[in-house]
């Protein structure tokens, strides 16, 4: 079986805003597929069209080969959804929420095990409004997994989580994939997409500007590596004349040397040592998805 999810020429407009502007892609069974992009890029609109919660203006979305808006109930049974924005009744308690939502499905995961995985055991009898932001978020992820879904949609899964909870969430998501299930997530964190996703679609203004594995995205663009170090005041050798170097930036005692070719570090170090410059704290920075986004759109992800 090829694509569990198949999207063709999907378009969605709200009044005069084009939220999704004709996008196409497929998600294979058992992969972690990520969608990244700045605020308003159209991530939520896309994901909710696939979930059957919104109706596209044209084009189509298919999941398990079916139209999600026509077969909502049957499809809802097999997928798990974490919405970017939603709530539970104020006085509903954590354990009750799992019991209640579990009752809507034919298949149910073990609620206590889920609470354990998400670190919510001690909060079992807390009311929804008494939870912290991150705890609410984790509860919603537990609800998305309560029916042992074949495909899990996580819209901004780690927003509001502290670094430790974020890492725990990554492990959880990898665990879902290991069971052969599919994960479709959106995120603002390039690092998260890079570390977690098998493939990433970069969305901007409702269009996919790139889609590939994180490594391939970074490699294909031939983006410059960076060499960062501190240097003393005074003259430097003309590093920009080295064939490996494409650009040099100096501000105060911080020096950044850009270049794509192999041998960048040794060439720069040799040149500096030859002129007797006492540099310190040298490190190389690999290009990341953040740079890919910048290279593709000419803008920073976060302004």
């Amino acid at each position: 079986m090829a694509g569990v999810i198949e999207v063709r020429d999907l378009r969605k407009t709200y009044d005069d805003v084009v939220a999704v502007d004709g996008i196409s892609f497929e998600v294979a069974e058992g992969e972690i597929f990520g969608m990244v992009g700045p605020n308003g890029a159209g991530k939520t609109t896309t994901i909710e069209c696939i979930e059957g919660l919104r109706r596209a203006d044209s084009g189509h979305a298919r999941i398990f080969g079916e139209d999600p808006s026509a077969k909502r109930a049957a499809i809802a049974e097999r997928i798990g959804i974490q919405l970017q924005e939603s709530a539970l009744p104020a006085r509903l308690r954590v354990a009750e929420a799992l019991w209640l939502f579990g009752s809507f499905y034919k298949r149910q995961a073990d609620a206590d095990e889920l609470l354990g995985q998400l670190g919510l055991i001690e909060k079992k009898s807390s009311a929804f409004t008494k939870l912290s932001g991150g705890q609410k978020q984790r509860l919603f992820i537990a609800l998305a997994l309560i029916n042992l879904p074949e495909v899990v949609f996580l819209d901004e899964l780690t927003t509001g989580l502290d670094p430790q909870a974020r890492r725990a969430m990554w492990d959880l998501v990898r665990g879902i994939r290991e069971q052969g299930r599919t994960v479709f997530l959106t995120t603002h964190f390039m690092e998260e997409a890079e570390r977690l996703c098998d493939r990433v679609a970069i969305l901007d203004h409702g269009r996919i500007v790139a889609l590939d594995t994180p490594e391939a995205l970074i490699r294909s663009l031939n983006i410059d590596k960076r060499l960062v170090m501190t240097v003393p005041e005074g003259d430097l050798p003309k590093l920009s004349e080295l064939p490996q170097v494409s650009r040099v930036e100096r501000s105060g005692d911080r020096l950044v040397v850009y270049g794509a070719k192999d041998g960048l570090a040794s060439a720069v170090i040799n040149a500096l040592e030859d002129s007797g410059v006492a540099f310190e704290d040298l490190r190389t920075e690999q290009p990341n998805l953040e740079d890919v986004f910048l290279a593709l759109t000419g803008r920073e992800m976060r302004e």
Partner: protein
Amino acid sequence: MRGLRQLTWTNIKLYLRDPIATFFTLAFAPFLVVIFGAMFGNDPNPIFGGQGSMDVSMPAYTALIVGSVGIMGVPITVGALREHGVLRRYRATPMHPLTFIVADITTNLAMALFGTILLVGSGILLYRVKFEGNMLSVLAAILLGGLALLAFGYLIASLAPGARSAQVIGMLVFYPMMFLSGSGMPLEIMPESVQRISTFLPMTYMVRLLRGLWFGESWGEYLVEAAVLLGVFVVCGGLAARFFRWE
């Protein structure tokens, strides 16, 4: 209808955890008996054919309690659930919309019935009010009137743009109805014009039907009232379902 039992049970628990809702349905009833009892007493009065004011008012207060749940309570709770995004979350499950609505109606009817039991209980204890009807018959009338007024409340909830406006509309509809339908005060002591307005209010028909059955009359004598309530239920319920919004 998977999840119906669980959702209903959860709703009832949530209802009882909400101090304001609980006060309105459960404490409101005995409160009414005490206030109106102090105002009008329960001495036999020729206006009421020799009955006391409290005797004839019991069915009216019942309608008042059911109406407060349906017309004020429903728009507030449904409006808030929608505005906060709770309905969105329910919608992401395979639960059928009807499951949500049936569970909610059951919860509200149960609470209204509970309120009625407290009302009649305190009426009997404090004023020895008379009940001469058939229990099952009266219960059926409470359910019919309850369905009609709840459907009316759901219609407000479906049409109002936000939680606030749903609340305001619910109050604007409920308070006049309380005074003009004969549920707050006997219509017999009201001017002619008020009695005429009352024929346009659904709660009036519930009051009339309940009062008849309460004193042992039969459904046959109240076919018009029953038909009006059924009509309100069907029309408002249909419109509410048609315009129901999850978000």
